[in-house]
């Protein structure tokens, strides 16, 4: 006799059982959906969008599991054997799912640490993107050229993550070189005027004008201007245009590599250094 895998324990007709189970599943799914949405809305308002999304998924996954168990129990299935097997399966799954578990635990640490939020621009390794979602196993980024990047949480925990938009204001630095013949006081004045003339450059904190170094026969200046983080593109474009215009008006040239040619010696053959102990063949060329 073939063993029946599951035993119907309830003492009602199968159709009644099925109907009750289906009703339980339907109502349970609706309740679960409402509960998870409400939790997301409340947590988003009072904590953060990040926590709201994570809790919504947690409630859905855990709730779905218990709903499934209730559905099967209502149908009359005996889950004792399944639960007993689950203990052994857990160990097997644990070995197989090490990476996923690591990602899950890393995700919990990321939730607690909150190094960034949804909507932040972050740099992870060589990837720069906007955080689209922070899930239990991975982070999803949308790059500035609209590519989708999935980064496992384990990698996020191990990597250096730069949250570009963490603070409301940022400084944009320009490293400029000027020819040695230029007057550094004039250069400083021009740079300050460029900053003062651009209304997107913050008056406070004051722009940085630093005479950084003299190297490779050029003066190196660092010109740093502060701006509100959402104005990055406008500030970059406008300040560079203003700089070019100001330097052109002041006839200040940025240095470039020059080679000096001596016309009198131009047609001379270059003399080669003497070679020692070299065997020559019949043509006089060395080996």
């Amino acid at each position, binding site marked *: 006799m073939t063993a029946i895998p599951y035993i119907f324990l309830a003492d009602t007709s199968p159709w009644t059982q099925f109907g009750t189970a289906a009703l339980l599943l339907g109502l349970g799914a609706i309740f679960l959906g409402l509960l998870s949405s409400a939790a997301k809305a409340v947590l988003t308002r009072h904590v953060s969008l990040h926590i709201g999304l994570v809790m919504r998924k947690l409630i859905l996954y855990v709730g779905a599991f218990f709903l499934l168990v209730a559905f099967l129990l209502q149908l009359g299935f005996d889950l004792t054997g399944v639960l007993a097997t689950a203990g052994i399966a857990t160990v097997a799954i644990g070995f197989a799912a090490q990476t996923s578990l690591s990602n899950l635990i890393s995700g919990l640490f990321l939730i607690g640490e909150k190094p960034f939020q949804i909507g932040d621009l972050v740099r992870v390794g060589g990837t720069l993107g906007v955080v689209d979602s922070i899930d239990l196993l991975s982070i999803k980024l949308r790059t500035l050229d609209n590519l989708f990047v999935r980064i496992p949480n384990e990698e996020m925990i191990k990597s250096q993550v730069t949250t570009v938009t963490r*603070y*409301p*204001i940022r400084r944009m630095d320009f490293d400029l070189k000027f020819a040695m013949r230029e007057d550094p006081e004039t250069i400083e004045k021009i740079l300050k005027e460029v900053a*003062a003339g*651009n*209304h*997107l*450059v*913050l*008056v*406070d*904190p004051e722009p940085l004008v630093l005479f950084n170094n003299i190297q490779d026969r050029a003066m190196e200046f660092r010109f740093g201007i*502060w*701006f*509100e983080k959402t104005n990055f593109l406008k500030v970059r474009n406008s300040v560079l245009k203003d700089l070019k215009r100001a330097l052109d008006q002041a006839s200040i040239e940025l240095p470039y590599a020059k080679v000096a040619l001596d016309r009198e010696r131009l047609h001379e053959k270059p003399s080669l250094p003497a070679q020692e102990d070299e065997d020559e063949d019949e043509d006089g060329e060395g080996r």
Partner: protein
Amino acid sequence: MDNQQLWTRFFSSEPDRVIFFRLGRLKLWLARAEREWALASEDGSETNLHSMSRIPMDVVPADLKWVRYGFRKAPDTFKLLPRTPDRPIVLRPPDLIHLPPGESLPLCAVFPAWVSVCLGETGGFQTAAVPSQILSDTWFGSREEGHLCYAIEHPIGDFESAADARPSDIVCPVQIENETKEDLVFERLCLRTSHLSLFAGRSHLWSTPVRIRYTDADPPARFEYPVQPPVHETGLRRIHQGELPEEKVFHRFVFGRRFGADFQAQVRK
């Protein structure tokens, strides 16, 4: 046309004629058709000119960016409405000011108004406000948190600076009172202009005064926005009602926590 007429009078418009306003640096064009109004604005060069003229369409610059408003029947009258800037402004004295204990200091801040247009009679549609002068961005607070504000070109000073105010400028009396037992060194303050009501004076605009009391409490600075007009000129006409400051609505603790950091000063013992 005097300053009060500029801000209180209703103007009529004719189709196919553009009305051009010059309000200091602001150039404002308004045009009306059967079912729409169009507005354009531009920041011009520095001038004390404040005028209105009606010009034909063909002399209007071709590269203007127009903002259009559609109506079932476009109203044929309009009025200019001055507004306070859409962000707080940072006021700082030209040099640090020391205020001995128990002393108070009356100061005056001059900053440009924003201009909106009311299309139709009183209560008609109000357009978005444009600045009569474009101000530079600045930050008030620490590098981790603070407020994006405007910086004004004139430092806060005595009332002599109000003499240079243009018709589209707002003059705001500010009184700082040192109620501590130490010497107060005033560095700068962040003025939330949305709480200011505006009045039309003979030659420029006035706002309700601001009173800042520096005390030993925490936070030390308390801002008060009296609703009475300034006493520095008579015959003022109220033309804009400011928002009520939150301290009148919420608990004092919230006000203190929110506004206490708007005043930066050092206390020397």
